[in-house]
């Protein structure tokens, strides 16, 4: 749990890479998945993605492995148990954020907001 708290909060990019790896994917597969999940908003650069994958492997959140990819030049990755725990923790944190934001905006934003 301590390790998870240390890794939180994740950047948006890291969060999307992690959830896309709930199924095994190679680098380009991750780019496409993140692009479609974010409705075209997050366009991952290959330099950014390559660096992020290395860091996620080092942190023990994803692992490279053999998952029937035909081209041996492409590494395939999948999320680890620790990675899944981290996603759950992040989801709770993000839910708290949106709930608090909505609650306060509803209560106070309505009074002093738009005229």
């Amino acid at each position: 749990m301590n390790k998870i708290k240390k890794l939180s909060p994740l950047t948006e990019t890291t969060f999307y890479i992690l959830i896309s790896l709930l199924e095994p994917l190679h680098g380009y597969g991750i780019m496409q998945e993140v692009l479609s999940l974010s409705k075209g908003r997050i366009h991952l650069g290959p330099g950014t993605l390559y660096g992020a994958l290395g860091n996620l492997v080092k942190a023990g959140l994803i692992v490279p492995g053999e998952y029937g990819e035909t081209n041996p030049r492409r590494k395939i990755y999948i999320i680890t148990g620790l990675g899944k725990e981290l996603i759950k923790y992040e989801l709770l944190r993000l839910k708290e954020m949106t709930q608090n934001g909505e609650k306060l905006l509803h209560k106070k934003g309505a009074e002093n907001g738009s005229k």
Partner: protein
Amino acid sequence: MGVNEDNRRFKTVSRIFFAWQAEKEENWLNEMSKKGWHLDNTGFITYTFRKGESEDIIYRLDFKIIRNENIDDYITLFEDAGWEYISKMGPWYYFRTEAKKDKNQELYSDNTSKIRMYNSLRWLLIILCAPVAYNLPNLYRRIIEALKGRIMDDIPARAVTINFTLPLAIFLTLVLCLMIYGIIRVSMVIKRMKSDIRE
């Protein structure tokens, strides 16, 4: 036949860019492509270009220290993402792609990861600096001792000091200054990026 010969024309240009001038180098390569000279290969301070049509090509350099067995995977990812790999020069990898309007054409899509790249470049410079900085005081001590006259009677030792040790010390001092300047310049790039709080 004449056209074919044209297509096969190559030229090699010598030009020095320092580690903190990657953007300048990218722009220069872009200008060359607009003139119809497309980068074909890179050497230590040389660039080989192949003559072709004038095109608007975006060049990007990536700094990466990478194990040999991972290079294929690394390059394949960039190729999948639409970047053509041209060559590498030490830890610098050269990529290019056709310029397209309204499209983000950067290797790094966020600041954090770009800062990481420059941080590893800075580390490399610091590591390379260390042995030079460590040995220089020794060299100067020997030169000073020689100049004080302690070994002035010893002709061969004096010759070695004047002809070898002194020039070496001056050369290494210049190298060290350049590297320290490089570290400062890279640090400035990092600082500028950090002031931009977007991820």
